[in-house]
């Protein structure tokens, strides 16, 4: 389980907090989604989990242990992160790319090789990437690449999976495929924590939503708790209505034509080098 407790983050040189007093839990066996407008602090929370952003106050717990007391390797064994961007200056073959997921387990003696093989086999089967193993990653389609990245995270073998905008650039079929895979993983007992812009999709797939606005939690709870017209309209600063999806009954957001309600505040971005 991943738990953020009253987390406060401020980037160097910024005059306000990027994340202010945010608490949330990503429990095993469910999909938790962090949603919110651009600059609301979603990716900052992922940076915190990656150990790339120190906290001003508050704490992050992994299975009830403070993130700061765990080594990088310990964290990587418990939580796998599919980051928003990955650089492919020298695209590796899929098989070797997947094997990198075992890096946090390096040096584990004896059981090492067998455990590595088992983890690879399991991940390859779950993410259905076996036909891709002998390709190099730059020859994959967007959907295949995303599946391979999820597979690599599964190879890490933890029971928590964090994904930052996993379906950007994917078409409907590949986006649904990715969400179905994540839902399956949550159903099988993993803690899946997702940062996403796809409100309507997460409202159908996630059991728990956290809506961020200007670095603060504007609403959290079940999709029905969070997907309320007046809340979303205020947070996104755009007129909209929330209806029921006629096919599945999940709350669905429909933005209306019109003008912005009020300029939404945005948090400063990290000074990206």
């Amino acid at each position, binding site marked *: 389980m991943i738990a953020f407790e009253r987390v406060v983050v401020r980037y160097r040189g910024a005059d306000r907090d990027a994340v202010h007093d945010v608490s949330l839990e990503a429990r095993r066996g469910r999909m938790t989604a962090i949603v919110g407008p651009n600059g609301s602090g979603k990716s900052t929370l992922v940076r915190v989990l*990656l*150990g*790339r952003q120190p906290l001003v106050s508050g704490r992050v717990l992994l299975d009830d242990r403070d993130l700061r007391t765990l*080594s*990088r*390797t*310990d*964290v*990587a*064994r418990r939580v*796998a*992160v*599919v*980051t*928003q*961007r*990955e*650089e*492919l*200056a*020298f695209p*590796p*073959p899929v098989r*070797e790319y997947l094997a*990198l*997921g075992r*890096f*946090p387990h*390096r040096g584990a003696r004896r059981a090492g090789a067998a455990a590595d093989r088992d983890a690879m086999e399991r991940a390859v089967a779950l993410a259905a990437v076996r036909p891709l193993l002998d390709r*190099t990653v730059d020859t994959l389609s967007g959907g295949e690449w995303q599946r391979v990245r999820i597979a690599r*995270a599964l190879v*890490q073998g933890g029971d928590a999976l964090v994904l930052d905008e996993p379906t950007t650039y994917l078409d409907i079929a590949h986006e649904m495929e990715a969400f179905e895979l994540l839902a399956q993983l949550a159903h099988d007992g993993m803690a899946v924590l997702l940062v996403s812009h796809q409100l309507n999709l997460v409202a159908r797939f996630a059991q728990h939503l956290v809506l961020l606005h200007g670095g603060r939690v504007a609403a959290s709870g079940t999709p029905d708790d969070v997907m309320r017209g007046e809340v979303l309209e205020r947070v996104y600063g755009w007129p909209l209505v929330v209806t029921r999806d006629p096919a599945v009954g999940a709350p669905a957001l429909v933005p209306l034509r019109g003008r912005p309600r009020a300029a939404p505040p945005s948090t400063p971005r990290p*000074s990206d*080098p």
Partner: protein
Amino acid sequence: MTRRAGRWAAALGVLVVLMLLSVALGAVRLSPADTVRALLGRGDPTVITIVRVLRMPRMALAVLLGAGLGISGASLQGVMRNPLAEPYLLGVSGGAAVGAVIAVSLGAAAGLVPIAAFLGAIAAVSVAFLVAQAAPGRGDSRVLLMAGVIVGAFANAAIMLLLANADADTVRGALWWMMGSVGDAAWGQVGWLALYVGVGGGLLVAWAREIDILALGEDAAAGLGLDADRAARRVYLVASLVAAATVAAAGLVGFVGLVVPHIARRMGAGGHRAVILGSAVIGAALVVAADLIARVALPPAELPLGAVTAIIGVPFFLVQLRRLR
């Protein structure tokens, strides 16, 4: 045997043939039989001396030089996620040249020039590294590359100032050094370089998986529990030391560190372990071949090694480039 393994076996075979040719050919041309006999210490004592004292160390130095530059370039490209990265671009060549030119113009003994070059290279890389660390995008490889280029430009300016009023002998000596050569190879020098290339290469191969991860970017590295800053720093350090040692041993031989890793990748080396080892083989073959051409093309004159590596490497690289998707 897979096609990939076959290609690598062929590359190793080419290297071995080139090494034998390098011992057999030169001002005195030896038959294959004489060469083998001399290597085993039999036959004409003069031939044995030529082989053991002149040709073998020269060949060995060329092998180590090429392997070292290939290893260094392959590691740096991976860590910096940049296909243009190479040790010379980090300031190794500029710093070494300044060190060597200072030593030559002060009339230092020939044995001190390599030491001055080595120190110059280390100084330049350190300056580039400290500049990059002080910049806002701390540890960003692009900043480091820029710092290296700037340090290199400064070094060029310093060399021009030093040589502008130097006497003809100094200019000639400095220029010859900057063109690179394995002509004065001796076993002592070979031993030193073997130490650097062996230990450095071993470390870089041991860190190959970390380089694979660093090549995916800093977020991905953090997600896999790798301390990206620390891992990148030690690769820079060791790759620079290896390159500095090659420069101290044989002067500036450009192009090898840049192009050899690309050839290794095109030959189907996927992860950096294979890219680094493959670059060692191809780098060695390239430099041995270049040295052969340098001394047999226009006898008795010798062509500058650094120019020959580029002249045979560029067309090869262009062919490889055409095959890119």
